[in-house]
Structures are given as structure tokens and as C-alpha cells.
């Protein structure tokens, strides 16, 4: 304990108790505290410096650390856990019709140039659409085409196959199979889903999230 020789009126709390006190004070404080402030709040005979040192050691490597900034002390969460402190929300949205069509054309016709995609879709492909598909890692650049202007081509990625549960692009059904599966009946779909504007990249989030 502190002063063995001078008989104190009350014994100072032991080191563990002092550490607990400093711990609680710092935890509940709305602002960082200086050592002097802590010392002033502790019972007579306590040693704020020793308690702070012990506390810093106790919290070293924990999810919460005792941080010193100049003359003040405060608990703060460990810097490596900063990512955890952000309130992270994920939201699932359906790919827009334009993006899905573009993706489909790339998958069926790869390697395919932008001009070819536009020819098949019958509308110009907005720059954002292909970029978005590349951001999602579903589409990447293929070889340049050996034609005048050497246009870039687009191909799908393994991540694309993964997402759609395909072993290979050969697994994609051909037009004839699509027709027999009833997927080539364009009319009902045209009736229910109006063609979005070219720059309307994404559909609104689907209700199921």
C-alpha cells in the first residue's frame, strides 16, 4: 500500500480497487480526463499514475484501449476494429433490364464489341451499363478485335459463371431451347415490363430486398 509509516485516517484502496475506479471514471466520462482530474476524483492516498499505467497494460491488445492524447486519457476502440464501428448495411437490388440484356448478350456472343451489343439490342448501350457489369466482376475486357479501329471486346468472368451457377458458357440454352421453354414469347413480357430508358441503369430495389 502507499504510505506504510504515516498512519492514514483511512487506508487507501488497494491497487486493484484504484484501477477499477479509474476504469469506471474514464468509461463514464463524457470527455477525456487529465491525470490531475482523475487524481482529484480518487479517494485520498490513491495514485492515479500507477492506476492508469496498470489499466493501459490491462487493456493493451483488447478491443478497447486506453489512449493517451497529450495530457488526457480516454478509452477508445482499437483502431484495427474501425471497420466494425461503421453501421454496415447491405441491400440487395435487382439488376436493371438494360444491364441484364447487355450481360446476356455478352454471355451468348462473347467476345463481343460494344457496337455488336448495340446492334443486337437495337439501342445504344450506355457507358455506365458495361462499366457497372465490370464493377460487379461479371464482365471483363477480352482481346481487341482485329478489325479497323481494333475495338475492345467484352467477355464474362468466372464470377459470372459462379453467380449464375453455370459450369461453362456451353451450358447456356440456345435460342431453340429458349423457344421451347417458352422464353421467346416476347409479347407478355413487353406488356408487363416497359422498356426502361437507356440511362435508367438500375431497377428500383426489389421488395424482398
Amino acid at each position, binding site marked *: 500500500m502507499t504510505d506504510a509509516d504515516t498512519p492514514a485516517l483511512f487506508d487507501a484502496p488497494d491497487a486493484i480497487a484504484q484501477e477499477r475506479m479509474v476504469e469506471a471514471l474514464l468509461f463514464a466520462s463524457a470527455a477525456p480526463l487529465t491525470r490531475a482530474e482523475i487524481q482529484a476524483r480518487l479517494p485520498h492516498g490513491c495514485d492515479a499514475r500507477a492506476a492508469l499505467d496498470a489499466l493501459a497494460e490491462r487493456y493493451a491488445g483488447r478491443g478497447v484501449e486506453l489512449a493517451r492524447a497529450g495530457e488526457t486519457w480516454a478509452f477508445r476502440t482499437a483502431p484495427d476494429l474501425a471497420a466494425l464501428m461503421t*453501421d454496415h448495411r447491405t441491400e440487395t437490388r435487382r439488376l436493371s433490364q438494360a444491364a441484364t440484356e447487355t450481360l446476356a448478350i455478352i454471355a451468348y456472343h462473347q467476345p463481343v464489341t460494344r457496337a455488336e451489343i448495340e446492334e443486337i439490342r437495337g439501342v445504344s448501350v450506355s457507358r455506365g451499363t458495361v462499366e457497372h457489369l465490370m464493377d460487379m466482376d461479371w464482365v471483363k475486357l477480352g482481346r481487341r478485335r482485329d478489325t479497323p479501329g481494333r475495338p475492345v471486346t467484352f467477355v464474362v468472368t468466372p464470377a459470372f459463371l459462379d453467380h449464375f*451457377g453455370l459450369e461453362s458458357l456451353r451450358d447456356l440454352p440456345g435460342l431453340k431451347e429458349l423457344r421451347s421453354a417458352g422464353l421467346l414469347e416476347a409479347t407478355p413480357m413487353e406488356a408487363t415490363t416497359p422498356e426502361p430508358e437507356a440511362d435508367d441503369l438500375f431497377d428500383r430495389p426489389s421488395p424482398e430486398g
Partner: protein
Amino acid sequence: MKDVDDLREGAVAPRREAADTLVVDVEGYEGPLDVLLALARSQKVDLRQVSIVQLARQYLGFVEEARALRIELAADYLVMAAWLAYLKSRLLLPPDPCDGGPTGDELAARLAFQLRRLEAMRRAAADLGDRARLGRERFARGMPTVPDRTRDVIWTANLIDLLRAYARTRTKDEFRPFVFDRRHLMTMEEALDRLRPMLGTTMGWSDLMRFLPGDVLDDPARLRSAVAATFAAALELARHGQVELEQTVPFAPIRVRARS
């Protein structure tokens, strides 16, 4: 049950003394049950042994005194007084065997129960207040970290979306709005107009197909329409009794003749 003395504390203490001395201060009481509880405590017994007859007498005395002091008593105090007077008589008189309702003892037990329950809740409230309370004895984090908000969007599409999309792009060219194509069409009216004069000049049975216009034979679409229209026209004329139709066996030529 704890000693009645430590049931209440602080602000409540003067009220207990008031009850002991039967100084009437209705303001201090939260209704007749509160008065009864204070009076019951003045019996200085465990509430389970409290004498309901004595309690009723005390309460009636309380009400009498209030009246003597011209203190306005709320209606429920008087209702309670009436009920206790009734209960007292039930407890003191021998039970009426014809009365099917609860006995005086049951009513008294019920009242004693209510008093004990109220007292128990008072003590529970005090116990709750004595606990180490947040913001008084225990403290929350003084510097809470407000989380940053981030939002991740996961884009999804499933295979059927993909296939439909492809199907859609590949069928766009084939698709054109349905337009009724009149070039190849012969209407029944046209056929009627054609049949009527021709039938007038023809006697006896003749093959219906002989009445087709001559320019349709090398155009299959037009031929089909002309056959259908002429047949329908013949049926229409038969319906009006202007012609007779006959067919010997299924798929045999259909023959027509005018009725005279």
C-alpha cells in the same frame, strides 16, 4: 413480511403518523384503500392478523371525523364507508344460511388480501428505487461512438432473368404489332355479293368451289380466305331459304342450288 415501520420512507412518514393519531388529512391519501392500509398499520400487527372489524370501525371513525370537520370527502371514500359498515355487520352477525353470496369472512379475507397486496407493491416500488440505477449509481459510456453509416448494394440477377433478357433481345426483330392484313382477305359480304347474282343464272346443283373468284387460285392465302367466305355466304343464303346445300360424304365437294 417486513416490519411495517420500514415499509415506507421519507415523504410517506408524516402520513403514517397522521393515520396513527387519526388526524384527518384526506389530501395526503391516495384513496380509501390507502387510508385503510395506514389504519391497518396502526393496529401494529402483521397484516395477516389484522382485525377487519376493528379496521372497519377505525375507517368509519375517520370518515365521521372528516364530516365533523366539514372536509369534503370524495364519493369513493363514502362508498368504502358504506361497504365497510355492511361488512362489519356481516362479520358480527351470524351468517344468513339463505344468502348464497360470499360470506363476511370471505369478504374480509378479500379486503385483507388487497391491503397486503398494495403494501407489497409499495415495498416493491421502494426496493426498485433502492437498486443501483442507471445514471445514479451505474453509468453508461460517456463518449459513445456514433457509428458511421455505410451502405453496400449487392446486385443480383438470376439465370432466368438472364435468359429472358436474351430471349427478349433476340425476338425484338421478329416482333411487330399485329395488323389486320386486308389484302388477302375476302369477306362474307363480298362472297354474298358475288354468289347471289351468279345463283340466279344457274339451275340445278353445282360445286360451290366453282363460284370462287378466278384470281385467287394461285394465291394460297387468298384462296383459303375466299373458300371460307364463300362457304359462309352459302350457309347464310341457306339460312334464309334462298339456296339448298348438299354434301354426300364428309370432305366430298359441297354442292349448291338455288331454291325456286
